[in-house]
């Protein structure tokens, strides 16, 4: 299988495109546009959103497998092995500096947001009758969007970071139905693993002082 084509894309707090993908860029001299939009309980809300995603990820993955038909459920280890796909690195732990955790989280959920959008689109085409799956995908995407918004706010408020380079995975558009199913499966399987780690890592960083 060909290596995933990582599209360098700049996800933007300022919605501006940058040709590189990499570490978060600290704002210098500029001001965060969302500075005044942070709510008082944004940290707690962020933690709850991650916890919610973590709590629902496995069910989403299981339902996804069920809706794809056999042998996705019975051979998910082999079919959905995420080794061949791109997934943003998430090498943070509880001792990692909080800023790096926030940036890594932003990259992670920006990627997930786009991937969930692709998966939802593919499943609307492949599985228009699987209402529960589509509902779960929509809800997860909504939560992810809210999480990105909160992370944006936190990055701006605490670190004055207003732009972060993120990479999105390979688009499934134009691929065969099987590849679409498989790619969604791979992303969701990895998502289940990473979201659990994110929930663990995020807890001390976002716990009320």
């Amino acid at each position: 299988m060909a290596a995933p084509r990582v599209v360098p894309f700049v996800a933007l707090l300022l919605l501006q495109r940058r040709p590189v993908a990499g570490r978060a860029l600290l704002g210098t001299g500029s001001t965060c546009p969302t500075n005044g939009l942070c709510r008082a309980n944004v940290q707690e809300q962020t933690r709850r959103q991650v916890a919610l995603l973590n709590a629902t990820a496995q069910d989403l993955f299981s339902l996804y497998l069920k809706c794809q038909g056999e042998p996705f459920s019975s051979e998910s280890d082999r079919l959905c092995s995420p080794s061949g796909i791109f997934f943003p690195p998430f090498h943070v732990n509880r001792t990692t500096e909080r800023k790096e955790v926030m940036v890594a989280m932003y990259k992670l959920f920006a990627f997930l947001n786009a991937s969930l959008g692709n998966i939802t689109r593919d499943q609307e085409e492949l599985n228009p009758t699987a209402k529960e799956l589509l509902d779960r995908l929509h809800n997860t995407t909504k939560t992810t969007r809210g999480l990105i918004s909160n992370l944006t706010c936190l990055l701006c408020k605490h670190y004055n970071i207003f732009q972060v380079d993120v990479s999105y995975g390979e688009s499934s558009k134009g691929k065969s139905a099987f590849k679409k199913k498989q790619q969604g499966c791979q992303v969701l399987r990895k998502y289940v693993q990473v979201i659990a780690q994110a929930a663990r890592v995020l807890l001390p960083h976002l716990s009320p002082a």
Partner: protein
Amino acid sequence: MWTNPNLRCLLALAILCLTSVVQSRESGSQGDPQNLKCVTHNLHKMVCTWDISSKRRHGQAEFCYTTNDHLPRCYKTKEKRVEIPVPESSITVKITTYSISGTAFATRRFEINKKDISFVPLAPHILSLTPDFSTFTLTLKWSDNGSAFPYGLDASWEIEVLRKETMEDVTRESYNSKLTHEDVIHSWKWKSDMPLECTSHYVRIRLYINVTQFDGHKDWSDWSPVEVIPGKDTEPSGSGLFPQDTVVAVGSNVTFCCVHEEGRQVQRMSYGAKDYPLIRLSSRSSAIRVLNANASDASGTNIVCRMSENGMDGTVLFVGYGPDIPEELSCETSNFVIIKCTWKPGRASGLYGVRGTKYSLIESISGKNVSCEVNEMKKERVCGFPVLADQKTYSFVLGVSNPIGQTEASLLVDLNQRVHPETPEKLTVSGNSSTSVRLHWYINGSFAEIRLLCQIEISSAHSEQKLHNVSMPGGRFSTYTAQLNALHPYTKYRFRVRCSAADHFWRWSGWSGTEEHTTLEAPPARGPDIWRERSPSGKSLRIFWKPLSLSEANGKIVSHEVSCYLLEESLEYKEVTEPSNSTEIKLGRNDCVISVVAKNHAGSSPPSRITSVELPSDNVKTDRAVAMGNGIYISWNSYPNMTCGYIVKWCHSSGSEPCSVDWQKFPSNTTDAVIKSALFRPGVRYNFSLYGCKSSGYQLLKNITGYTKELPPKRAPNFTVEETSSDSILVKWEDMPIEDCQGFLEGYRLSFAKGEKDALKPRLLESGNPELKVKNITDLTKKSLKILDLQGKTSYQLDLQAYTAGGLSPPNSLYVVTKEDSVGLIIAVLTPVAVVVLLGVVASIFCYRKREWIKETFYPEIPNPENSKALQFQKNICEGNKSLKTLEMNPCTPNSVEVVETQSAAPKIEDTEMMSATTDTTVPEDGSDSETENHVVVSYCPPIIEEEISNPPMDEPVGLSQVVYIDIQSMYQPQIKPEEESEIDLVTTAGYKPQMQLPVSALKIESCSPAEEESDKTAGYRPQANTNTWNMDTPDSPGSVESNNENASFGSPCSINSRQFLLPPKDDEDSPKPNNTGWSFTHFFQNKPND
């Protein structure tokens, strides 16, 4: 062997010689042309070829042919082949061969007939072979080269498809055409049963032309060169699972192949959850074949190929149905702007998204078409088509297609006959009249070319719903108006409207929203229904009127004008405002004609008149009325002189308020009626008065009383006992109020039986008492009843109930005790007393005469116990307790009693026989010597009071006294230490025996227990008083304060020596009551020890 050159030369020589011999035999001579063959490929020219018998080098050959009509034509050639026109008849051919130097070798002549010429078309040339990988189809194109042949020849083509590297034959198919003397390109399609990517496919073609006029041999052409469609397995990097995302119909057979890189192996392939056997196509391609595929899920069925080195690839097959023919295709317009066509899709295809069913609407007259956006999840599909100007007839074809197939449905419609107008909106109601309104509404649509039929629904609270149709010309997005007349004044109406095409009804539109409107008031339609009643004093007249119904009032009645006329002269005038429905006029003894007019804001009603004159009546009877349904049936005789009808008047009473008068008028030919009223209640008595109407006034004809339904009386009448004797009770009861009767009272029911007042006892009538007696009193005038034949001094329960046709009232109960029969009582008491006295006298006389015998027999002299050392009690013991009579020494006369102590002999009555003491024995203090003694002689003091002892004292050591009580239940036996037991036994054997004779029955009871039996064998001292009477509060009792000690002996008598309480009382077994103080006379009558 063949390496030897000599042998090689020999072999070559031999072959040469052999060849020469053969050739010489065939040709006959050297250089002769032979084997002349002529073949034509196009029927115009033919190619003649020949052989030369000698292998010697030769030069040119001269080929000359001569037809019958022409001169010979000659060709010189070096190729042993000439092309000449196909002769129309036979020809003669002369072939002369020359040497290289030009010398003629040989000449030979041939006769060629037409049948000797063969016709073999040239091999076809494939123009193109095009693959369609998605449909597994190969398209072959070639030219028929028809220009080379005469017109109209039948051409047969044979096309062969081969597969795999080994070019295995897959199919060979025929294709027929007619040659048109033009070069025509033919096309042939072939659908493979496996994806074309799976392996290489080859195609070749050949031709046979059937020329009927040709006499010679005809044959197939040679095969064309093969055209190949290489499979993915031939590409160096080609891999994949094929076909990709294919859609097939349910029941199809599908082949999937897995093309992989060189060096890998396919391990297994699955379709859904099932593995299928592998079919090897090439070293890099394997396949499975799925037969009769079932419908797949929405997301398709996955086919997965597992390869070595953890390789995996997959594809999805979508299996569904072709589109069903649309059902119930219907087209209509709601506004003449858009034609809306609806249909039902029929059987679901099972395919969704891009594979779902697509619809297009084609109007064949105009040639326009639209594609339809439909929602797959909805059952009914809708598609819009624009209304075209100047076109009224539309021929629609609904095309349906999906990847599996396509179908269509058609419909021809005249649009004017398919009008389903939009729902009317903006409905408004206007009007300034009491009977008419105008309605306005708007319909969003262009209906200028048709007429509309609109339906107005009129509803009000007090009338039935009505529909009013109105036809009107249609307009372009217009507001429509309709007027409604003949409405009722002062009525709140609700209107709504819907429309359809008037000329060609198709469908009603939806109902518009509802609008409300109240019409204006109008004067009341008629005067009120009136009645009058004179006051009891006769000086005033009360006039009643009924409220007009809403349909008659035509508005809100604000007042009633009441006038009293006497010969056109107004005596009285009153205006009574609502809500009064009566008024009083003081007339004195006069009469007049009363007129009542109802008034509302719009005007006055016509007057209603009634005369106040009441004609005298004689012998007015009162009848009972019969309930009928929820009314009361009243009938009367026909009174011919009642010219203006009858009036039935009654009165409704509700609680404390004065009753309200109601009446009903009937024509003069009526003799019965069912009076109904919503105010009638069951169980309420209504009094009706029937009046006859004459021109001169009204006359009371009769009174009627009745119930709509009789109920059981609310309660029983109050009753009292007036008189009681030893065998009778006289009861009296009161009349019941009519309102309590709830029906016509039919009688009373008096039930009585023996019984005492007890709240827990069931009611007399419910108890099922067999002695219950019932008296039914149907004479309602009777208000008392004497109950006879009762028992004296007995309690009786009396229940009184009233009953109607509706049932029995609840009972009223009394308890009465009859008086005692004193004479009988006296006789009953005196008779036994007299008998007892008489018997006493006889006994006294008898005893007096036999007194000496009695004394000797029953009362011999008893020795004084004071003379016995064994019973020498200290006199100060138990002093002060007068009740311990048993222990008093005086005035005992001591006797010597020998107590025989034997283990085996049970105590017998004879043992108690008194014996003279022979030996005075003092009881040793410690009893140690008593073990060997069989006879103990003790002093004995006879008891003053004989007691029937049933509980023998149990063995119990008490201090040093060594006095043993046997007659105590074993359960109170003190816990004795084992080392003390032997000592106790010694004591018991030396016990004191009472001299009184124990009852046999008591002994028998005692013998039931082995322990007690053992106790009986020991002759200890028996207390001669009832143990129950011992005072438990004896101050010296050590156990009196230790109630938890089972061995506590409170309440026991003090022993002679120790003054210790020795025996607990049996009564204290369960609940020790320390109130058993002293002796009681009643104890002497006790028969049972426990008592």
